[in-house]
C-alpha cells in the first residue's frame, strides 16, 4: 500500500487544532516526510554497509556520496544530465502505475527510442528536434505492444514488457550493425562496437545547450532536463486535470466499473502503455542526443530503464515528485561514482534499494505514528472529561482517527466527496482494487458516518476481529 491521496478529504474534515499537527497530517506533507525518512534510513543503511566493509575509509566515502553532486558545477551538470533520462523513465513507470499498469518494459522502450533517435541523426541526418520526435514515436510503438497484448489477448503486461525488452535490445543491435553510417567505424578507424559521435557525424542532431554549458562550465549540460520537467508537468496535468487522464486512472482502478461508466477499457490500456512508452522513448532520445553519450552494443538491458522504477516509487508515482526523485537518484549515483576505487559504486544501488524497501513500509510507520498520536489525544480527552470539562475538541479530531484506523483495514477509507481528479491511488495492482471493491460496502458506511459521531471504538472493533480470526482453527 502506498501513501495515497485518498485521505485528503477526511483529513481536511479533521481540521486539527494545532498547526504543526495539522501540517503533519496533511497527506502531502506526510508523504514528503515519509520519503525523507526512507531516504535517511536508506543512507544510514548504506553507511553501515560501508562501515562493515572498511571502517577506516567509510566516512570519507560516505561524505562523497552526499556532497559530490553539488561539489562543483561540472558534477552538478552531470547530475542534471543523468537525471533527465531517469526522470523520463521514472515518469513512464509512474504514469503506468497511475493507470494500474506495471511497465517494467521502460528499458526496452528507452532503447528503441534511443535507436530511432540515433538512426534519424546518423543515417538520415535529421535535426535534433526531429530525432526527438522519432524517439518518442519509437518508444510509443514499443510501449503500445504490451498494451495491445493486454487489451486484446489478455496477456499480462509485465510478461510482454519483459519479452519485448529483450526483443527490442536485440533488434536495436541488429539495426545498428546493419546501418553502417550509425557505427563509429564509418567515420574513423575505431568504434565498431559503438555508435558514431554526433559531433563528427551530424552536429545538428545534438540537443542545443543555450549557453548552459558555459554557465556551468560543463559539456554535459544541455536543455534535456527542461524537456524532462516539461514532460512531468504535462503528465501531471493530463492525469489530474483532464477527463482523458481521469478515464485512464479510472480504468486502472477498476476496469469493470470504468467499463460500466462508459469508458472503453481496452482503448485506455493501449493508450496508457503507448504514452508510457513514449515517455521512456523520449528519455532515450534525450540521453543519446546529448553529444556526450554513444550507444555501446551490449547484450544486457540498459540500467536506466530499470532505474526508472525506483525513481517512480520514491516519487510515489506523482509526476512532479518524480522530477525530484530523479534528480536525487542521479545525485547519489554521481556521488557513488566518486567513491571509486575504494568502494564499488554499487553501494549506491544498495542505498536506493533500501530506500525503496523502507518506503514500501513507510505507510505502516506513518499509520503507527498517527495511531499513537490518536491514542494520546484520547487519553488527554479522557483526562479532560474526568475533570468535568466538556471535550469540545473531540468532535473535529475524529477525522484524524479515521485516517489512523483506515489503513488497518487494508484499504484506506473512501472519501465520499472526492473531486474527480483526486482518486490517484498510485500503484495498486488490479487485484487489490478488486478486493477493495468487495470491501466497498463497509468502507462506504464508515466514511459516511458523520464526523461528529464518536468513533473511538473503531480500532478496538478491528482488534476483536483479529483475535477471532486467530481462534478459529
Amino acid at each position, binding site marked *: *500500500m502506498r501513501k495515497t491521496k485518498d485521505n485528503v478529504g477526511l483529513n481536511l474534515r479533521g481540521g486539527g487544532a494545532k498547526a504543526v499537527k495539522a501540517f503533519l497530517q496533511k497527506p502531502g506533507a506526510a508523504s514528503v516526510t515519509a520519503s525523507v525518512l526512507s531516504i535517511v534510513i536508506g543512507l544510514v543503511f548504506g553507511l553501515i554497509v560501508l562501515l562493515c*566493509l572498511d571502517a577506516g575509509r567509510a566516512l570519507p566515502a560516505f561524505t562523497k556520496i552526499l556532497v559530490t553532486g553539488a561539489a562543483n558545477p561540472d558534477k552538478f551538470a552531470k547530475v542534471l544530465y543523468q537525471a533527465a533520462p531517469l526522470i523520463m523513465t521514472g515518469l513512464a513507470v509512474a504514469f503506468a502505475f497511475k493507470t494500474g499498469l506495471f511497465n517494467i518494459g521502460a528499458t526496452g522502450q528507452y532503447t528503441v527510442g534511443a535507436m530511432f533517435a540515433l538512426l534519424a541523426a546518423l543515417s538520415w541526418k535529421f535535426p535534433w528536434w526531429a530525432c526527438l520526435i522519432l524517439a518518442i514515436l519509437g518508444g510509443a510503438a514499443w510501449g503500445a505492444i504490451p498494451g495491445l497484448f493486454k487489451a486484446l489477448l489478455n496477456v499480462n503486461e509485465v510478461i510482454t514488457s519483459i519479452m519485448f525488452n529483450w*526483443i527490442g535490445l*536485440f533488434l536495436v543491435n*541488429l539495426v545498428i550493425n*546493419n546501418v553502417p553510417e550509425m557505427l563509429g567505424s564509418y567515420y574513423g578507424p575505431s568504434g565498431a562496437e559503438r555508435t558514431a559521435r554526433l559531433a563528427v557525424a551530424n552536429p545538428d542532431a545534438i540537443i542545443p545547450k543555450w549557453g548552459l554549458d558555459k554557465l556551468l562550465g560543463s559539456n554535459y549540460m544541455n536543455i534535456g532536463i527542461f524537456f524532462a520537467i516539461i514532460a512531468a508537468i504535462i503528465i501531471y496535468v493530463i492525469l489530474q486535470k483532464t477527463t482523458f487522464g481521469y478515464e485512464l486512472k479510472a480504468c486502472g482502478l477498476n476496469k469493470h466499473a470504468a467499463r460500466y461508466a462508459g469508458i472503453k477499457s481496452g482503448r485506455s490500456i493501449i493508450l496508457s502503455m503507448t504514452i508510457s512508452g513514449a515517455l521512456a522513448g523520449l528519455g532515450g532520445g534525450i540521453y543519446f542526443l546529448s553529444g556526450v553519450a554513444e550507444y555501446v552494443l551490449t547484450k544486457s*538491458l540498459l540500467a536506466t530503464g530499470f532505474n526508472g522504477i525506483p525513481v517512480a*516509487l520514491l516519487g510515489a508515482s506523482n509526476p512532479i515528485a518524480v522530477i525530484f526523485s530523479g534528480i536525487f537518484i542521479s545525485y547519489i549515483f554521481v556521488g557513488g561514482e566518486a567513491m571509486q576505487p575504494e568502494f564499488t559504486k554499487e553501494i549506491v544501488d*544498495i542505498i536506493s534499494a533500501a530506500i525503496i524497501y523502507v518506503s*514500501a513500509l513507510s505507510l505502516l510507520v506513518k499509520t503507527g505514528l498517527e495511531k499513537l498520536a490518536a491514542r494520546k489525544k484520547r487519553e488527554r480527552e479522557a483526562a479532560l472529561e474526568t475533570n468535568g470539562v466538556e471535550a469540545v475538541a473531540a468532535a473535529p479530531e475524529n477525522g484524524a482517527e479515521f485516517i489512523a484506523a483506515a489503513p488497518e483495514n487494508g484499504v484506506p477509507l473512501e472519501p465520499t466527496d472526492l473531486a474527480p481528479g483526486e482518486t490517484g491511488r498510485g500503484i495498486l495492482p488490479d487485484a487489490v482494487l478488486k478486493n477493495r471493491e468487495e470491501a466497498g460496502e463497509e468502507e462506504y458506511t464508515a466514511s459516511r458516518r458523520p464526523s461528529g459521531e464518536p468513533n473511538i471504538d473503531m480500532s478496538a472493533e478491528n482488534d476483536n476481529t483479529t483475535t477471532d480470526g486467530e481462534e478459529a482453527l
Partner: protein
Amino acid sequence: MNVFADILSGTILFAVPLILVALGGMFSERSGIVNIALEGIMIIGALVGCLFLSAVAKGSWAPGMPQLTMFLAILLAGISGIVFSLFLAFASVNLKADQTISGTSLNMLAPALAIVVSWAIQGSGQTTIYIPTWIKITQADFGFAASSAPSFFERFAFKSFYLTTPIAIAIIVIAAVVLYKTRFGLRLRACGEHPQAADSVGVNVYKMRYAGVAISGFLGGIGGLAFTIAVGSGFQSGVSGYGFLALAVMIFGNWKPLRIAGAALLFAFFKIIGPMSQNIPFLPSFSGVKSSEYIYLMLPYIVTMIVLAFTSRRSLAPKAEGIPYDKSLR
C-alpha cells in the same frame, strides 16, 4: 546426430533453472504473494553457492567428493534464497506492503550486494566467482569410462550433466504431488484463491504465505546456482534476467507444475538453437544480414509471445495474488 544430442542436453541444461525458479514462483503466487523478487533471490542463491564451491575448491576433501560438495552447495544456495525471500515475506505478509515494490527493491539490492560481497571476499575488481569444473557428473561417477566415440545417448546424457538436473526433475514431481495431493497444497492454493475462506476454516493464512514465499526462496536460490552452472563462465553478479523469464514461464505454464516444465523446455529449446544455428543444416543462416546472431537471440522471446497470444485467454491466475491478507476484512 551429435548436434541433436547437444541440442537436447543444452535444452535441459537451460530449462533446469527456469523450471526450478518458475516452480518457486508458482508456490509463492499460489499462496497469494506476487514474487517479483525471483531475480534477486536467484542472484543471492548463486552468490552463496558459488562462493562455497570456489572456497572448498581450494581444499583437498571437496574435489574428492564432488557430488556431496555439490549437494551442499545446492543446499546452501537454497537456504540463502530462503533467508533473502523472508525480507519479501516480512514486508508483504506482516507489514502488508505493496508486493511489487518490496520485490523490486530486493531485485535492486541483490546484484549490488553480490558485487560488494564478491569484491570484499575476492578483492577489488574481482567480480567473477569461478566455479570448479569437477562438479559435472561424468561417466566415471557411474563406474564406466568415457568412450572415445560417444553414442547419441552418452553424448546427450553426459555433455552437461549436473546434480541440479536430477534434483529439478524430482522437484517437478514433488511440486505436483505437494500442490495437488497433500493437505498443505490444498491449503496453500486456498490462501491464494480466497484467503478469507481459508482463514474461516482454520488455515493460518500468514503461515501459509510465509511457507509459499520460503519455498520460492529455496527453489529460486537453487535455480540461481543452476543458472550459473548452465552459463558456465562463473558467477558475475547477475543472472541476465532469468528470474523475470521464469516469471514469464510461470504465467505461460498457467501456474501448473507440469505445464511450467513444458513451457521451460520450449523456451530453453529456442534459446539453445541460437548459438547452435550454424551447425543445424536446415535453419536459415541469414547470410545477407550482419550480426545475424541477434535474430536467433530474439527467437525464444518471440516464440513465447506467440504461444502466450494463443493460450492466455484461458490463463487463470490465483485470484488473491498481490492482495495483502488482512484478517479484519472478512
